[in-house]
């Protein structure tokens, strides 16, 4: 299955956003619900859903769909259509 399809719905569900929200709008700055508590909860959700453990540098930069996607790719998660595939 296309992995990208997993991150986007996870974030839409997590922040209870409409299904047609553009990925670039999923950013901490734009979402009041994305506070520090939500960040902690989101980290746990992501670690569980993608079987990854973020490092400290990454944790401080999980502030948008794009950054999370990049961090997951660095962790070896494959995203189809990604130029930066690993693993």
């Amino acid at each position: 299955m296309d992995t990208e399809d997993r991150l986007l719905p996870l974030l839409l569900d997590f922040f209870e956003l409409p299904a047609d929200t553009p990925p670039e709008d999923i950013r901490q700055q734009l979402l009041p619900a994305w506070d520090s508590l939500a960040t902690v909860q989101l980290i746990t959700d992501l670690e569980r859903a993608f079987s990854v453990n973020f490092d400290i540098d990454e944790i401080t930069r999980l502030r948008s769909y794009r950054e999370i996607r990049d961090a997951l790719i660095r962790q070896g998660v494959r995203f189809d259509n990604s130029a930066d595939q690993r693993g």
Partner: protein
Amino acid sequence: MNLIHQWTGSFPDLQQAAIRQAVESASLAKIRRALRLLQELAPEQRGPVLNVEILSTFNLEPILPVLQLTLNCLPSRAELRLAPLDNIEGYISQSASADSQKLPDARVVIWRLEEVLPEALYPFSSGFPKQLAARVDQVMARVEGVVSLHQRTAHGIPLFLSTMALPVNFANPVSAAQHCAGLFASVSRVNQKIYEVATARDGIYVLDLASWAAFEGRVHADAIVDFLARQPLSAKGQLGFALFIARCLRPLITPRRKVLAIDLDNTLWGGVVGEDGVAGLKLGHEFPGNVHLRIQREVLELRNRGVLLVLLSKNNEADVREVFDSLPDMLLKWEDFAVRKIDWNHKHENLRDAARELGLGLDSFAFLDDSDYEREQMHQFIPEVLILNETPDPLHTLRSLWETDAFDSLAVTDEDRQRHRDYSIRAARDVGAHRDDLEAFLKSLEMEATIEEIGSSNMERVVAMLGKTNQFNLTTRRHSRAQVQSMLELSGSIALALRLRDKFGDQGIVALLLAIPSGEDATLLVDSFLVSCRALGRGLEDALWAAMVGRASQQSVRRLEAEYISTAKNGIVADLYDRLGLRRIQPDGGSTRYVLEQIIPVTFPSWIALEGQTYGH
């Protein structure tokens, strides 16, 4: 995750599916969705209200939804209140001075070494061994202090104290073990104190997070989230933690299963007695007989802590008798079973009969059987019965006994330990033991009854009995203390309790009767009449009735009225008043009214001695 599915078996499919998805994914969105769907259910489907206050030294806010979900799955209408971080004593004091109506149904204190005694992680920087040992003493005193503060300010509210898990993140585990003031010993001392306080004081329970963490292993911890937000639990750990807390609180709202109905062949021993003969059965210290022996040990332990055993076996009784008499390693004895059903009838029918004989509801039963067919049939015919195992494998059967929460309780009382005997008496009576044998047997119990007035000295027990007695209870009126008090104040009311002693010791108050003057002249109405389920089948109702009638005739009562209000559980007394010689006047829906026009003294049962007649003369 099986537990949560067992707990939520009564929820509609939609809610069950949402819970399954939430538990499997552990995703916050799915947890919130499951919670929303649960909130849509009618209150009676959701279970009892359960207000829980949690005081923690680490940050539980991120996992509040998970906790909320597992508690809602008990099922309950749980509401969680999280105290400010690491402010245990302050919060307890402050909530005492606030509105006392806001006291929770249960309070939970969760603490860990990292906050309470961080010095133990760095012993050589903390005055090891002497100063560190002194700090441990202080923490132990703090445990006492928290409990005392709670009991002073929230008396009667159950308090769950967590033990402290061994830290996951620290250096030098080898040297930490080498000294009685080292890290491991320090944790043990604090935890020992927690167990001691809970043992010594009523209403204090242990939430054994140390055991839980040891059982879960390091996977429960997540160092990075701990550093980030003082939330130490990994994604996997959160759900296990929340389930563990829910399981520990569950006995507050859910009675445990009272009976284990169990099969014989390939369960309590390996092999089939009818085919393999006694000599061919596998039971003992060799594999695989040792698995069956261990099953017997677990079952015997359940019996000894108050779970009644019912034998359900499709066999010839003589064959089974022979095994009990002659198989050397049999740990369970014939008499260990309160009821034995060894024949070729359907097991669900036999279980219904056993329930009737014991006077217990079908939802009091758990069932173990290696046969897929028997388990399936039981489930189809009596869905209330909890099926413990899912496969025929004996090791799986054993595991199901290790893992089930069906028999969880927060305390095992003397009453629990005696339950087996009390119910055996009752079952023997109900299967129609020969009257003379029965009288001889009842006489051998050396019963002595004391009839007491109901008043402040026994009020607590009386109100508790009114609140929980279901079977031998003619009207099932759950009167409060205040209601009982106002009945006592009515001129001419008769309120009696029966205290029982037998050769096994003081059984306390086991029966009571409340009668109040009725509108008509010199008429007395029996409002409540009940006998504790552990004292049934001994004729105590006759004794108490005789005492009441004696008192009534002295008070020149001319007419007695009584009432039987039928419930799902009190069929055992449907014809009690007929037997006592009252006349039915009219059935009125679920209730039947009775009258006794002429008060004639009744004979006290010959097998009960009457101590210190506090009524009459």
